[in-house]
């Protein structure tokens, strides 16, 4: 790709990086935005290879801890690092290995690490050696400060569910002083693989209430290959309790759904929960990320940016049983929020640098969005991925603006028309007076917002990046 075909003044662009100029051409002091700082979330993708069902804690005493399923399904591992990035290379501690025979000698799946009442707990699912799919949920406890230390871990036993059966993917959360467990289980009357249940806990390994089913696979996207609701993760924000979960077989059909309850409702009542009719996170052919799901949530180093942690493969075709294809890799990306307080998941963003969204200063709640190959400025759009872009730097210091959901396409300027195309127009970002950036597409020509349209004019619009 030659991004320089319509470039007339590369030197100007290079200069601009060094010495920003304002819309009227006068040099301005002030720093250009740091996209990585805006995005706030590591862009290494994958973050960790061959770790599925990833769980990253919020930082505890300055350390992020990671656990997840290993392809051998034979052990529990924990990593720790001061940053999310650091988990990629952190040494992995094996805190438990399955016994050679008997109970818990089968598949070991989807551990989660929780800090409850000053102790560490791991919920994990285990089959038996003579029936690796006789999956039940077990609880481990460690009183040590460092969950990586194998010496601290003690098995508390099998979670005694209301009825015996295939049980996995327990996750714990506290809300209004009560501790809850959400997990996946098969229920005898229901001809599906697993549904999702919630119950209040008396302690991390003992139920206080009976289980309430809050979701069962009913939608077409939840029942492909296997009829599954599993891998729940809880996020409480904006007066709501959100539970993401994963559905269908663990191939490219795997995807995520969303349950929502009011934070003031009785979470043990079925009617408190609403299932979103469509999946909220699915495979993407353009970014080549397949079967995204079994997520967890953590928070970025800034302490406020929510981070979506999930696994996905980067190929669609699997030879043999997807369960034994080892390449579900741990990935992280930024979780966004709509102004109405609901989460925006977008798409698996794939490889590339930090991602930004552009809001014109005259419409701070709107975002630059592409619709097909055209551009517009839209108020609080729900299609997050259409508003996500990467500024890709060229050697000369100019940048092209790459679409996240159409990564082979870039912002192209032709006359006053702005569109998406294969060969991006080099642009230069210039710190704008009063904040944000002006985006120069040619000498004296800038991206300009007018009445929801994105065009090119001599008068620059300042765009806030978020």
């Amino acid at each position, binding site marked *: 790709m030659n991004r320089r075909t319509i470039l007339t003044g590369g030197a100007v662009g290079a200069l601009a990086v060094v010495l920003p100029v304002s819309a009227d051409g006068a040099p301005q002091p002030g720093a250009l935005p740091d996209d990585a700082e805006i995005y706030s979330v590591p862009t290494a993708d994958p973050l960790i290879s061959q770790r599925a069902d990833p769980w990253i804690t919020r930082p505890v005493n300055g350390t992020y801890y990671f656990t997840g399923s290993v392809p051998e399904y034979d052990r529990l591992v924990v990593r720790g690092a001061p940053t999310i990035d650091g988990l990629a290379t952190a040494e992995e501690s094996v805190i438990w290995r399955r016994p050679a025979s008997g109970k818990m000698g089968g598949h070991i799946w989807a551990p989660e690490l929780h800090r409850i009442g000053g102790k560490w707990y791991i919920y994990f699912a285990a089959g038996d050696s003579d029936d690796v799919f006789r999956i039940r949920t077990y609880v481990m406890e460690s009183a040590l400060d460092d969950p990586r230390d194998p010496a601290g871990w003690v098995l508390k036993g099998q979670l005694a569910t*209301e*009825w015996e059966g295939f049980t996995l993917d327990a996750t714990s959360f506290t809300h209004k002083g009560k501790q809850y467990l959400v997990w996946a289980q098969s*229920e*005898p*009357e*229901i*001809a599906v693989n697993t*549904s999702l*249940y919630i119950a209040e806990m008396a302690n991390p390994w003992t139920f206080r209430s*009976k*289980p*309430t*089913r*809050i979701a*069962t*696979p*009913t*939608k077409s996207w939840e*029942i*492909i290959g296997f009829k599954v609701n599993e891998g729940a993760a809880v996020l409480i924000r904006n007066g709501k309790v959100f539970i993401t979960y994963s559905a269908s077989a663990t191939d490219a059909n795997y995807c995520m759904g969303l349950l929502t309850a009011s934070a003031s409702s009785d979470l043990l009542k*079925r*009617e408190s929960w609403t*299932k979103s009719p469509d999946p909220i996170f699915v495979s993407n052919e353009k970014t080549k990320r397949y079967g995204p799901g079994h997520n967890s949530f953590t928070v970025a180093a800034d302490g406020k940016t929510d981070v979506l942690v999930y696994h996905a493969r980067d190929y669609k075709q699997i030879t043999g049983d997807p369960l034994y294809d080892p390449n579900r890799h741990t990935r992280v990306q930024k979780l966004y929020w709509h102004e109405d307080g609901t989460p925006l998941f977008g798409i698996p963003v794939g490889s590339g640098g930090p991602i930004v969204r552009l809001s014109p200063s005259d419409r701070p709640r709107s975002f630059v969005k592409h619709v097909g190959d055209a551009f517009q400025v839209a108020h609080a759009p729900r299609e997050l991925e259409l508003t996500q872009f990467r500024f890709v730097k060229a050697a000369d210091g100019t940048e092209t603006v790459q679409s996240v959901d159409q990564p082979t396409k870039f912002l192209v300027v032709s006359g006053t028309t702005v569109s998406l195309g294969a060969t991006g127009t080099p642009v230069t970002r210039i710190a704008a007076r009063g904040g944000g950036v002006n985006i120069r597409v040619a000498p004296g020509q800038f991206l300009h917002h007018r009445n929801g349209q994105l065009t090119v004019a001599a008068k620059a619009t300042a765009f806030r990046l978020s």
Partner: protein
Amino acid sequence: MRRIPYRLAGAAAVLVSLPLAVSPPVVAYAAEPDYTITVDPAATGAAIPKSMYGVFFEDINYAADGGLYAELVRNRSFEFNATDAAGYHGLTAWTVAGSAAVTNDDQRLNERNRNYLTVTGATGLTNAGYNTGLAVARSEHYRFSVWARAGAATSLEVALQTADGTALSAPLKVTVSGDMWKKYTGTLRATATSDAARLTVRTSGSARLDEISLFPRDTYQGRANGLRKDLAEKIEALKPGFVRFPGGCLVNTGDMYQYTAANNYPRARSYQWKDTVGPVETRATNKNFWGYNQTYGLGYYEYFQFSEDIGAMPLPVVPALVTGCGQNRATVDEALLQQYIQDTLDLIEFANGATTTTWGKLRADMGHPKPFGLTTIGVGNEENLPEEYWANFLKFEAAIKAKHPDMVVVSNSGPDDQGSTFENLWAKNRAHGSDMVDEHYYNSPAWFLQNNRRYDAYDRNGPKVFLGEYASLDNKLYNSLAEAAYMTGLERNADVVKMASYAPLLANIDNVQWKPDMIWFDNDESWGSTSYQVQKLFMNNVGDKVLPSTATGAVAQPKPITGAIGLSTWRTAAVYDDVKVTRPDGTVLFSDDFGDGNADGWTSVTNRGNWAVTGGGYTQTTTDTEDTMVKAATISETDYDYTLKATKTAGAEGFLVAFGIKETGQFYWWNLGGWNNTQGAVEKGITSAKEQILTKPNTVTTGQTYDLKVQVRGTKVTLILDGVEWASFDDNGVTEPFAQVVTEDTKSGEIIVKVVNAQDTPAVTKIDLGGRKVARTAKQTVITGDPGEQNTRSAEPILPVTSTVGGIGSTFTREFPANSVTFLRIRTR
């Protein structure tokens, strides 16, 4: 879905599909409605009998012992044995600390209560009850009783406790006095609530014990030897018009002889009503057809009493010496037949006879001097030997009618909605002029939506129909919607269909032999399925006469049979070879002769069986595995021939050749050598069950290679076996997702409009009540939700919602939600 008008000959206009945005239910609809319902201004429809809808109680899924029968002690009389179920023995559910032996000798409590327990020395006995234990509630009272005798003074200490021995009641002290069988009673009061309690009986010394029993004092209507309150009340709330009992396959399967010494006390017997009456400690025990023990503590008296208590007509079913239910056997014994006929006459005497008669006196002795008012009796259930059954039925019917000319005697038409047995028996019943014919069928929801008009075509002057067992094959809302749609057709045909009952009624969640079921329970909770909610809505809003109505609107046309091809086996090893799918012109779409030594392209559907390519063929070698389906080659064309060679190498059955396999799990298969190599069939599989499209006798010979060909032409399929047409069918039913019936409740002066919308879009519907003057408001009850949801112990997301709605008139428009049943009760003015 193509929109075509139907049922209104003159309605030529093709309705346009409307983009139905979410709109409030009562608005002025500018656009054309999706559907119309037009009630005839003048015509009178069928009268609907009070018995229109009822319940079918069978002791399946622990419906009686461990279910409706409130006894908390399991195996109270030490009668369990290995004939009932593998692993059962005289002390099943009991643990003994000390010395106790199940004894079968002439010191027994009663001739037909064969076993008792001999305790030697101080001994503790603990009963674990059903499910997780005995369910007890804090402060509730429990009635204990035991039959006992002891040579020396022995006392019993009786208490409730947890599994680990924590007391759940104060102990009850019983002193056994004398070495003669005597009944001792007392009451326990639970000090805490538990669903895992144990009953303990500690003896101070040696004793003989039998009939160790514990009932909640709070049984349904407080009756002794009574019923579990929550379950009985759930049944009562249905307001059933009748109770069919005691089965089902339970009635007429197993040994036909009596529980006597001469017959060596046969254990797996037919349901002989006299075994089930009189004091409970004198009643015989039996193996239940569904694989467990039945105490008969819940017997004929209790059935009659319960029917009376809930205001339902009793409808007993008696065995006729012929079995269906997989046993398919006739017992030819003229004396026994005469005895069975006499038993049936005696049953009528037990129900209706004067207290001066032998059996009427027993009824009175048991506590009910007044007659039970038996008017209708069923003879036989699902017999698969139509000739043998029919010969016996005629004798039963003649004997009953000779003594009781007004008694309605119900015949049946076998175990399915079609097929040779069905046709044969219906022909016999029609020719004979039977009162009523009992039909049974369990089918896919699609079948119910395609067969709304089944009874429109029945002879109005022929035998009446009793739809004694039916259900759509799963427990999801969608199944219940299909049943609801079908029920509108039953009601519309109330002049032919006189009674209908969903089946089965009850299921103990930990002991399920059959599902779907209407009411589910464990030891301390019960919950209604979505079908329970639908049945309850229909049964509580029947009306007494049909107001004829017609509807127009969209229907769904049949789709051609496309999808993957497959191979399977059922407890059979087989070799398949030369698999080919071709267009009618011979173009090959798929072929695999397995000559390359591998089965690339084939994937397992069920993850069962042991498939490998050996000797140039695709072999499945296990003989203990059911449905080992593998599939290949998704066929998207509508016309194709699927050919293969099949050879059985070992096992119980034959071949399963699948086609039209969808990702959703739906498929068809050609079943050869099914039912233990007695019958062939085409079955249509859905998520968790199969319905039979056609059946005919068929066997497969081991070692013989068969040429099989499935010729698919759209919806029409021809099956060719060794070059000869074996059968054909056309799965071309039109699906009607929208169904309605309008009835009138003369007494309350209400019109009841019943609308079922079994599809994912709302139905804006214009309703014309034929000029009738009505109130402007109506009482509306709606059952709606996610069609894939179901009600279970962990959540009941589908419950009826009742409200008062406006906008009603002699013509009005309403929007019926997607996937809903709506009843509108409208007062006439």
